[in-house]
């Protein structure tokens, strides 16, 4: 069966549309669709879900014909590191403060690059942390601690 899929981009895009369409239809099933008098809050989402699912099916059908198209490789490691750096930043910001959060963000995201060098990135991170504390905490007065309560101050 998988050998019959020719356009892999169409197939996966279609599958995503179909899945989200079905999911949204299911989740929105309880919302009031409204009666003859007026449209309820469930009407528009339900119509859109059906439309999205239909587009998904059409895209999947189309993937069986035409010139072969493949999806190129995924940069799993890089992607995870970049996304993880943002998640860690969010988790550390209030507790550990902006300085630690910026250091972690820079080192984790930086390690995704093939030219990563721990010493140089630590220096970059310190410069960025200093700059952001000056601009965002001192200058713009954002309610973010430079050094958070977790560090025992």
């Amino acid at each position, binding site marked *: 069966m998988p050998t019959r899929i020719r356009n892999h*981009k*169409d197939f*996966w*895009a*279609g599958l*995503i*549309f179909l899945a*989200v*369409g079905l999911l*949204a239809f299911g989740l*929105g099933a309880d*919302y*009031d669709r409204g009666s*003859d*008098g*007026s*449209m309820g*809050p*469930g009407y*528009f*989402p339900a119509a*859109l*879900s059906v439309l*999205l699912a239909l*587009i*998904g099916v*059409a*895209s999947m059908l*189309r993937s069986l014909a035409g010139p072969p198209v493949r*999806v*190129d490789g995924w*940069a799993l490691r*890089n*992607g995870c590191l*970049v*996304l993880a*750096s*943002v*998640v860690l*930043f*969010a*988790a550390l*910001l209030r507790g550990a403060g*902006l300085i630690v959060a*910026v250091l972690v*963000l*820079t080192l984790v*995201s*930086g390690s*995704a*690059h093939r*030219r*990563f060098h721990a010493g140089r990135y630590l220096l*970059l*991170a310190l410069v*960025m942390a200093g700059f952001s504390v000056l601009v*965002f905490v001192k200058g*713009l007065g*954002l309610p*973010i601690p430079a050094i958070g309560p977790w560090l025992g101050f």
Partner: protein
Amino acid sequence: MELLAHLSLGFATAFSLDNLLYCFVGVFLGTAIGVLPGLGPITTIAMLLPATFTLPPVTAMIMLSGIYYGAQYGGSTTAILINLPGEASSLVTAIDGHEMARRGQAGKALAVAALGSFFAGSVATVLLAAFAPPLSELALTFGSAEYFSLMVLGLVASVVMARGSLLRALGMIALGLLLGMVGIDVNSGTQRFTFDVPALTDGLNFVVIAMGLFGLAEIIRNLEHEGSRMLVTTRIDGLLPKREDVRRIVAPVLRGTVLGSVLGVLPGGGAALASFVAYSIEKKVSPHAAQFGHGAIEGVAAPESANNAGAQTSFIPMLTLGIPSNSVMALMIGAMIVQGIQPGPGVISEQPELFWGLVASMWIGNLFLVVLNLPLVGMWARLVSVPYHLLYPAILMFSAIGVFSLGNSEFALFMMAGFGLVGYVFLKLDMEPAPLLLALILGPMMEEHLRRALLLSDNDPMVFVQRPISGAMLALALVALVVVLVPALQKKRDEAFAE
């Protein structure tokens, strides 16, 4: 005479010290990010949005606009000097511009790009001043039915203009509209798709989504393959074009300006599309067609004029109808909402200072840009050598702090990371995020107008067809959709984009 009074109000506003300063900051930043590949106006505007909350609305809009059209100037610098377009809208400029640089004519290419942009920008600003007020007056007569049809037309047009698969672009629209439904329904108070998460009751924040889909996803992709950046020349001289060069570029600049002005207004159009079309048309009509690809000066003049004109006129639908024609304008709408201004046809009459001040600032900004980009071009050229591996952690940091400060919430950052993953999947599958973002913004408005129009017409769906303006817009949308779905014409469209 009314126009003169308005313009003097505009210039009085734009010439205040604060506004001049922020206009300069905007175009300066715009040039910088235009030069830096991997950092575009969408990410930059989204990043700086929180910093503008404390500014007066006019000042904020002046600065954010400056970033957008400033990026069109900066993008051409890298395209010409290192064959690496800083922005998508300068992609075609690289073809002949870089060839000119390799032949020792870098100065001439840069000058033509800047002067063409300045001319086009000035003309497009006049068009904006002339056409926006009557258009907004027309729009004031629109009812809900007209608005709904207008949005349908806008979304269809953005699909037609999108590159790549039509079906996928349609899917992205439906997906964007659905994402727009998240939050409390204003009419009934029903919570839709909120999963009992309090942060979702106000709906998905489009800045967060734009940052994830565009900013984060781009970073992950840029890490995959990073082009080498070599300056072809550090010596840039001969900035003043000769008389003969000026004669050669007059027609291409005019054609580029007209084309860019028209395409900029269309939804899904804007600067990038304008430059592509201008280049391919110039290649067909130019008497020097054979030189194209080998350093033809027309191949720089036309697309650079077109992209700047397009950047300027894309403000027209945003300011007159409250409907964004591209992702940057979608962010500008968001900026206005944050400032407490209801986007729509009322903006020009209710906020004359904002509209005319913005128009005047655009002209001043274009003047700043010529000065910034010609004598100081050496400085920008050096900025090119900032290595990406040191740049992207900084982009990430500014994005993260910006998104957090939107509502002081960690949740927004988790959402940004999530949509970064989604955006990377979209990139891999050639699913265009731009139509999704437009639909996300338009979704709630569309539903509201649909419901109101039906309520007023006792639930008669024929109201959309029977009202003449509404019916005409729906017919136009249908024609556009049919035209691009016909296989023969679809092939032509693919060819046009391939060029």
